[in-house]
């Protein structure tokens, strides 16, 4: 087991809530260290403070690396720098869209509290239409919002930009 191999293995561990992308593509694996004896230390950062999937992810990471021959696996959680959807690469965004989830737009970096929602409409992942309406900022998981498409009439999830 070396660092490159460990990253490769982690690239096969799916996000339990959005299994079409890996935990690496999600951007939560921050650092991977492997010592001479094959002991692996993985540093992950949570998506949301209360995300219940983090425990599951930690377990999956451990199992995958052990199965691939790691002698021991330590998973450490760090809060800083805070996770942002900007860390999700373009290739993974395409996978989300193909899966029926609108990928996140750029994260809001403004320091001001915005009270008037002036977001551009989110394109429907099914038909591409931008005639869509935000139904709720809070969806099936902490990381998703619900929209409805006015063209194909399908509801869809959006991966929230954060």
């Amino acid at each position, binding site marked *: 087991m070396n660092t490159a191999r460990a990253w490769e293995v982690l690239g096969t561990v799916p996000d339990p809530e959005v299994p079409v992308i890996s935990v690496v593509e999600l951007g939560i694996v921050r650092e991977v260290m492997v010592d001479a004896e094959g002991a692996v230390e993985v540093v992950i950062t949570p998506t949301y403070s209360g995300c219940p999937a983090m425990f599951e992810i930690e377990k999956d990471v451990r199992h995958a690396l052990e199965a691939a021959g790691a002698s021991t696996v330590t998973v450490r959680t760090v809060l*800083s720098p805070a996770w942002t959807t900007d860390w999700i690469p373009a290739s993974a965004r395409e996978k989300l869209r193909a899966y029926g989830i609108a990928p996140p737009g750029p994260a809001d970096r403004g320091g001001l509290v915005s009270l008037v929602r002036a977001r551009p409409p989110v394109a429907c992942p099914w038909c591409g239409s931008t005639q869509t309406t935000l139904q709720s900022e809070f969806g099936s998981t902490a990381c998703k919002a619900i929209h409805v498409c006015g063209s194909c009439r399908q509801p869809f999830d959006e991966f929230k930009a954060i």
Partner: protein
Amino acid sequence: MGAQGHDAEDVGIAAGAAQAGDRPVAGPSRGPRLGPPLVEYLLRLGDDRLILGHRLSEWCGHGPILEEDIALANFALDLIGQAASLLRLAGAVEGAGRDEDALAYFRDGVQFRNSLLVEQPRGDFGDTIVRQFLFDAYSVLLWEALLGAPHEGLAAIAAKAIKEDRYHLRHSSEWVVRLGDGTAESQARVQGSLDRLWRYTGELFEADAIDQAVAAQGIAVDHRALKARWDQLVDEVLARATLVRPADGPMQRGGRTGRHTEHLGHLLATMQSVARAHPGARW
């Protein structure tokens, strides 16, 4: 979903809105015994979010509409997650071997440091939304002030939590506008919520010896500036919601030093019952 007046009416589980006569219960007779300032400070931050998160979790399965049920559960999850981080840090700073679970489940009411605002009963949906808005506006501004705190752990929590709380504030402020500028019924009810809850807002901006002590360690929040920005933000939303800002009359206080209203005890009895009946249980 929408601004129909029945949203508020249909919520049949109102647990009694905050009563006008609520007073903090008597504290320990020889005055509060407070711990090291940074531990106290982190407990105040953590307990606000733990208690409010629990209040919001009471809506799970009872929301007026499905989207709001999910939204309030999401809020609760974020706040309880933030509380876990803050209490874990408080326990680490204290150095007495208490983790976040020990602090959440094995302290009694007088040891809790949350503000009185967050322990008030959830009331109806309007009460819950108004309280959430008042708190979210405070919380976002407080995290902004703490982003640069010269304490790595606290600054990291602030940077994480502010992203979540911005979403919360956007959502709760929109609902305040929707209900306030809604029907005559919804407007009268949320105006009532605002009038009842206002007396608990002063405590959020009070600075005492604990604040001064952590300020000396560099964790300096300018409470007056915080209040001025909060006033501006709240006024803007209330104006849009056609609601009348209550006068700043006498404010209720005591939560920060462990003198709570009767409501906290009932909440803790529920929140702590499983952990106390089965100490150390894992699943």
